[in-house]
């Protein structure tokens, strides 16, 4: 199972279409199989990122703001999207693995409380 996070520094990138860095975590249940790998994208493109997500066989995307058309596209491809997340990407991943991350979550780490 693969989870993809759009990241900016240590945080979830504010926008899916503006992301230039992603992190892919492979897991088996609540445990990661290995250290998540980071990919630097050549440029900002929601379309190319969508392509990559489909080709990589990602099953869950964690991101900030995302346009409805892309959200629908992923839903249509049976990919779960947890969008509108604000906060540290490591915390977001932990919560996702624990099944506790919801769309629109503002994580404590975003306010420096993490």
């Amino acid at each position, binding site marked *: 199972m693969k989870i993809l996070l759009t990241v900016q520094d240590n945080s979830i990138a504010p926008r899916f279409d503006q992301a230039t860095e992603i992190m892919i975590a492979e897991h088996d249940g609540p445990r990661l199989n290995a250290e998540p790998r980071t990919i630097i994208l050549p440029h900002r493109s929601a379309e190319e990122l969508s392509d990559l997500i489909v080709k990589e066989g990602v099953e869950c995307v964690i991101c900030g703001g995302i346009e409805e*058309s892309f959200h*629908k596209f992923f839903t249509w491809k049976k990919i779960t999207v947890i969008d509108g997340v604000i906060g540290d990407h490591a915390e977001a991943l932990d919560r996702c693995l624990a099944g506790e991350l919801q769309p629109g979550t503002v994580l404590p780490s*975003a306010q420096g409380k993490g």
Partner: protein
Amino acid sequence: MTAEFPSPFPGLALVALLDAIPHGVAVVDRECKIVAINQTLEALTGVTLAEVRGVYVDFVLRSNIARRGRTFREALAGDPLTVEGDIVSRDRRKIPMRFTISPLQGSADEPAGLVIVLDDLSDVVNSAGLGATEDVADSIIGQSPKMREVFELIPLMAHTEASVLITGETGTGKDKVAEAIHKRSSRAAKPFIKINCGALPESLLESELFGYVKGAFTGAVKDKPGMFRLAQGGTLFLTEIGDMPLPLQVKLLSVLDDREFFPLGGEKKVQVDVRIIAATHRPLKERVAEGLFREDLYYRLNVLHLHLPPLRERETDTRFLINHFLRTFAERTGSSVKSFSDEALRLLMDYAFPGNIRELRNIVEYCVNICQTRQIEAGDLPKYLFARLAPTAAAPVAEPVPPEQAPPPPRETGRDWLSIEKELIVGTLTQTRGNRSKAAALLGWGRTTLWRKLKTHGLVGPAEAGIENEAG
């Protein structure tokens, strides 16, 4: 620590002041962390002030102007600035915005923070025709939720190289959608070539698709490139893929996998870079189960699947399409027809349109040509509509109207029996999809009688008429 911004009015909180402003407003401290946002911005972003107090403003606004916070830091160091960009709202809409970013002077010389005002530019952008999706539809028309989903998927499909399978009943616009995907793709400047896999016999289809070399067979007097090579760099649209003969399906699968093939009679492989869009009105999965379509090809084509809804599932679109085609054909023919009568419209809205938009378009074209007044009446509709409506409709108007019983008054419409008979024949032939034997049976005539009447009304081509004359 976030800076404190005392309200200039004792007893009145800063946020209450901000809420009075009819724009999204954010106040941030010198570290560009949220101090206050007003209700408008809360509604736009879907977060509350309590949730995001102390959060970097970039993450809250979800704008494309932040440049990792540089824009805001520059504003802190300099003069007020106005930037145009967009945000992604809580309901996942990209909204064009004008951001006015002004430093807030503190007691010292340094600014204590920023006030950011978001001005919604949607109306300006839309009225200027700059909407992001304005060209998505091209000539595809529809406002129903199901079609909106299709419109949203078209640009996404355009931006990948994967094969697309478009399914949908006949007349739902599969060709137009395929062309729209091509036009929006990076291959738009290259050819878009369409080939109907159901219209040609196997051997001809093979030579059309893959081409041949001189001498490959009798009559192959020169090399023929074939559709795959003609579509090099572009898109090959294979319509009626469900009707493609099985042996050719193997060859197509091989080309899709290897991106190369041997032309008929050729000894040298040809490499191609072609994107495939396939369409069919047939249930491909069932054909796979019946052994009529290769399963591996089905999965190879079905990377991206787009289903076009039939017109009966696009209720809100029917009226819209009727008006659209009425305007189009009235302009094209110079007709003075302006509208449908309530009765005619009701009959059309009750009709199931098994031929979907193509049938609707043809019906409107027929009406515009037949109607002699400014308003299309029920009597101007093709007669076959009444025949199909009759079993389900209870209203007497839905009964078939024998021309003998209810001929339109000649002085009003200028129509005589011959024109009505012609209309009846055309309507019946449309109903039987051109099958003259069935049409003759429906009309209660012998096939010869129908043939004679077709000739009388000029409904047969001169060549066909000549053959018949020689034969007869």
